[in-house]
Structures are given as C-alpha cells and as structure tokens.
C-alpha cells in the first residue's frame, strides 16, 4: 500500500495561488493526485484548474472533509503560520516545499506537530511520490516508475538522478520521500525507514544522505541494533566538500568534527550497510539483494 502518499491521499494545497503553487498544482493534478482544495488568505472564492480556493484551512476542511494531506508552497515568512493552521485543523500529513524557513520556526512547528501526532515532511523538500499512484511534491514524474524500491533522501535532483538510474536498469520505486535539506526537518530517516519496514510493497530501501548533521549516524545506530529486516543501501553526497562551507542546503555543512562524510560512511559500514561511492553504483549494490 506504499507510504505517506497513496490511493487515499486527498490533498490540500496551501499557497495555491502563488507562482510555484499554481504551477505544481497543475502538474500534480495531471499526474493523477486527487487535489480537493487550495488555500490562500484573501483569495477565497477563486478556482485554480477547477480546484476551489479558500481563505482558511478550516473552510476548506468544512467543505472537503476528506482532506488528509497538505502541501505547503507558502513563502518562508508565512509558512510557519500555514503549517500550524494545518496542524490545528487536524491534517495529519503536511509536506513543506518552502525553503529558507528560520530554524527556530521549524523547531516550533515540528515539536508542535510531534505533540499532536502529525507527520511533517520537510521543509525544503521536493516532496513525496508514489509512482503511478500520486505525487505530492515538485519532482518530475517522468523519472519515477512503479516498483518495489523505497527511496529516502535529503536531496531533490539527486533523488531524481538515482531514480533515473534505477529505472534505466529496470528497477522501480514504491515511494520516494525527500525529508528535506534543512538542519531541522520533521520526519527523519528513522521514521521513514520504519514506514518502509512495515510496507509490503517495499522490498529494499535506498538512503541518500549528505554531509552535515547526524541523521545518517543516528539511522546507522538503529540499523546496527537490528531495527530493520529489509536490505538498505546508502549513498552520501559531499565526500569532497570542504569543512565549514554550506554546500547548497542549509543542512549540508560540516561543523567541527561532526557530520563528516567519513563518519557517516563508517557508521553505515559498521551497521552492515553497503555504501555506494557513486550514484550508478547503487543499482549494482541493490541487485545483490533482489
């Protein structure tokens, strides 16, 4: 039944009237995602591609009680408010595309979401796609084909690259999840791996990490403890990145002794995880298990 985004996904688009929101609403709809409504404060009453727009999440939910997922395209300054509005209206999966949300704001709504049992994906994520079923995000659908490999990644285009490579070699994707490139994100590798572990449509998982933070190390510890039965392959970007420099993502920076490429690879290897040194090698490592 794949994870996070599936047949039952009924989507709300927050920030639907903005340039990005409008553009991707069109693409998601064309992909087959069921979009029930959109929200933009002050723009209630309009329609975008036949989708009704409301001023408040509350109004959208009242008219479309099946909504269970929201995607956020709201600009950084107002994104936090939009997320909290969604949480307070009991939307249980919130996918935040917006980049450059201050870390303090992210901490607050991530904590609040956790306390309320809400899943947050992102911020600064390309979103989530379950090929042939639905996409809630900005990734190009053409690089993803249905299959039984789960992907979880801190990156956007690199995920497309990896999926493209899998598809080229005859493999497919159950769900691909971008957890986001920021220093603090909602769900992290561990929670997504837990979902893949329970998902009958996923046979193996590819973890795409990058330098910075400790998310990969924390995952490796759980893998080492035997938390997962399914095969896991890892790839880490930033092997040659200099310390102290932010490499594109706010989270991709080696601070002090922490978050180095070597530390992540060592931890994965210790946990028995094969680490690909280049994207194309992922397929080769995967095929051992399939």
């Amino acid at each position: 039944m794949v994870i996070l985004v599936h047949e039952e996904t009924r989507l709300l688009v927050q920030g639907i009237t903005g340039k990005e929101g409008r553009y991707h609403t069109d693409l998601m709809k064309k992909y087959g995602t069921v979009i029930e409504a959109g929200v933009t404060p002050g723009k209630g009453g309009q329609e975008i591609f036949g989708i009704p727009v409301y001023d408040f999440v509350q109004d959208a939910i009242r008219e479309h009680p099946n909504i269970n997922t929201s995607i956020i395209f709201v600009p950084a300054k107002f994104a936090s408010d939009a997320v909290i509005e969604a949480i307070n209206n009991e939307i249980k999966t919130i996918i935040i595309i917006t980049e450059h949300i201050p870390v303090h704001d992210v901490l607050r709504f991530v904590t609040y979401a956790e306390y309320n049992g809400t899943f947050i994906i992102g911020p600064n994520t390309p979103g989530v796609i379950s090929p042939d079923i639905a996409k809630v995000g900005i990734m190009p659908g053409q690089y993803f084909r249905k299959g039984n490999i789960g992907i979880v990644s801190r990156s956007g285009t690199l995920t497309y690259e990896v999926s493209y490579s899998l598809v080229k070699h005859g493999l497919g994707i159950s769900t691909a999840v971008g957890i986001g490139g920021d220093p603090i994100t909602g769900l992290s590798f561990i929670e997504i791996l837990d979902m893949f572990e329970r998902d009958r449509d996923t046979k193996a998982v590819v973890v795409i990490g990058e330098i910075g933070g400790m998310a990969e190390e924390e995952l490796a510890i759980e893998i080492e403890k035997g938390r997962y039965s399914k095969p896991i392959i890892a790839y880490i970007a930033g092997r040659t990145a200099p310390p102290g420099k932010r490499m594109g993502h706010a989270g991709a920076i080696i601070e002090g002794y922490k978050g180095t490429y070597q530390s992540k690879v060592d931890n994965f290897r210790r946990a028995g995880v094969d680490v690909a040194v280049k994207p194309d090698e992922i397929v080769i490592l995967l095929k051992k298990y399939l």
Partner: protein
Amino acid sequence: MYLYEYEAIELFKRYKIPIEKTCLAKNYEGLKKCLYEIPPPNVLKAQVLSGKRGKSGGILFPNTKGEYLEYGKKLLGKDIAGMKVDSILVSERIDIKKEMYIAITIDKSKKKYVVIIAAVGGMDIEEIAMHSPHMIEKIIIDPLLGYSEYVIRRIAKKLMLPVNEVKKIFIPMYRLFIENKCLLVEINPLVLTTDGRLLAIDRKIILDDSFIRLDKGLKKYIDLRMCKMSESEKIAYKHGFSYVKLNGNIAIIGNGAGLTMATMDLISLHGGKPGVFLDLGGGASSERVRNALLIVLHDKDIDKVFVNILGGITRCDEVAEGIVRAMEETKTDKKLFVRLVGNNEEIGRKILFDKGIYAFVDLEEAVKEVVMS
C-alpha cells in the same frame, strides 16, 4: 552567519548582558582614541571570524602605552587564519578568578534548544569535551515551553554561582537567542572577576541566514559582509546561487545541492579537481544559467566548466539558451561540458548542437570526458 565579536557586543549591550569595557578601532587613529578610553594594561583583539584567533596571535596584552601602539599597529592589516585584520577591539584587562562556559544552541537530534555549560572556559568547547567531559552539562529546553526556573538553579549549581547572578546573564542571553532566532549564542569565557562580578568577556553569535532574510534589523550584517566578498561571491549572492570557491580548475554548475555535490564527488573520484561549486537552486531559467556561467567564465583559476542539469521543473531549452548566451557574450578559451536531461531535452540538445556544443545524457560518461580531455 557568524557575527564579528564587535557586532555580537552590540547585541549583548542591547540585551544588557554584563560585559567588560570595550572600544573598537578601525585604524591607527581609532587605536589612539581607544587608548584614552581604555588605557593599558588592556587587551587587543583582532576582529576576524576564526575560532583559532588566540592561537594565531590575534589576541595581545599590552602593558604600556608603547606596547599598545606597537602591538596595535602590527595587528592592523595582519593576516590571521587567512583573514585580513581591519579592526581591533580594545578591551579592559580583567582580573579573573574563574573561567566558565555557557552557550545556548539547537540540539539537532533532539530537535530542542540546549543550554551547554562547563565549569571551565576559555578554550574550545570541543576541547573541553575531549579533556574534561564531566565538566560539561547539557540542559534540554522545549521550544514551546521555554525554560523553567530549575534550569537557572541547575546552571548556578554547576558553575557554583549565586542564582541571582546567573539570572543576570542567562535571562537576557536567552531573550537574545529567541528574539533574534540565533543558531548559537556563546559566552566563552564567562568570568568571575576577583572583585566578584560576572562578565561575558568573549562572545560568539551565529545568526540564521533564513531569519536575516526576513528581519529588517539584521539585514545590515549582510550589507557589511558584501563589502568583504570577492566579486564572484557578490554576484553569486545577488543571484541567490550557492557558491563555494575550491582549489581546483574545474567549475561545477548544477541544479540542486545534492546533485551538485554528487557531481563534484564524481569529478574527484575520476581524478579531476573541482575549482568551483555552484548550485543554481530550483527553477534554473536561461537568465540564471547565463549569470552562473558568467561567474565561472571570468574566474581565471578555472579552465573547464561542467554544467550538469537534471531538469525536472527546469526546461532544457531554457538552460541551453542560457549557455549559448553566456558563451557568445564571453571570449573564453575555457572548455565547456554539458550534461542535459529533462523537460524539452531534445530541443535543448539541438540548440547546443547548433552552436557546436555536445550535451551528454549519462552523468558518469560526461564526468569522464570532463576529467580526461
């Protein structure tokens, strides 16, 4: 973004965190002025963004007027850890009874705020952690709840200070941290003076770039840094590119942080030397591609340019047009390599082909070519 010590002092003063007397000198005239405000024996601190300032000779202790002027003159313009000293902070010399450490930052694993304290100070917290881990204590603070009184009592006990003295430091420090959405506020060392005062005599603040974008009051720090940027950095910053200058000769332009990093790694793996990391970010229009290319085409350390675009949203014809425009505007003998995949891929490839540029499809094949040729 790291603040200079004198910038951090501004914020410390605004929040009334007790510090020693200081005076900022931006040149020799300034030094002479500060001499009367804070006569020697005092302290001269080079205003550079390096944690190793002390070890690199950036902190000096003149005892006489002569020493003061001599040391100061030497320090101004000196190169410390690769940075030119263009201002000096003159500080009152403090008789220290005890040095301690206190910082408020973000625990990324727990997704909470964390207060870090140590009963020793004056050295790097990672050094303290290495040599005296038992001296360090971390106190987690829930971002919704904020701190409770017991946190202050805990700090007081650990540092063996009266609760009321700790309040004078911690409460404004926490407010500074929260109201400016800081990533780090650090006092190191926090000192107890021989006459019983508690002073923050060295301080570090890291601001959140994402918050600076939104906050009018903090934007000035960016303007200030713009002046110190290289021409390439300035242009990259203006266009919102993520730009990192590296040591090699191959410029890598990609769309997306992960992909650009992976490309850089792959170049290295095949024996190439990346000289520029440039992430275009999302939605690379022809104009953005052109601007990015212009930056690296004007970089004399670069002799090969590799553009790797995996267009999802990005349209390949736009990218191709941007490349063509940049190449036509610039007389260059740098070699250009392009890998282009995505929307309107065929059109894009044709546009390039018409101008004699071959576009690869496979990433690794492209990388091999970049390194070999």
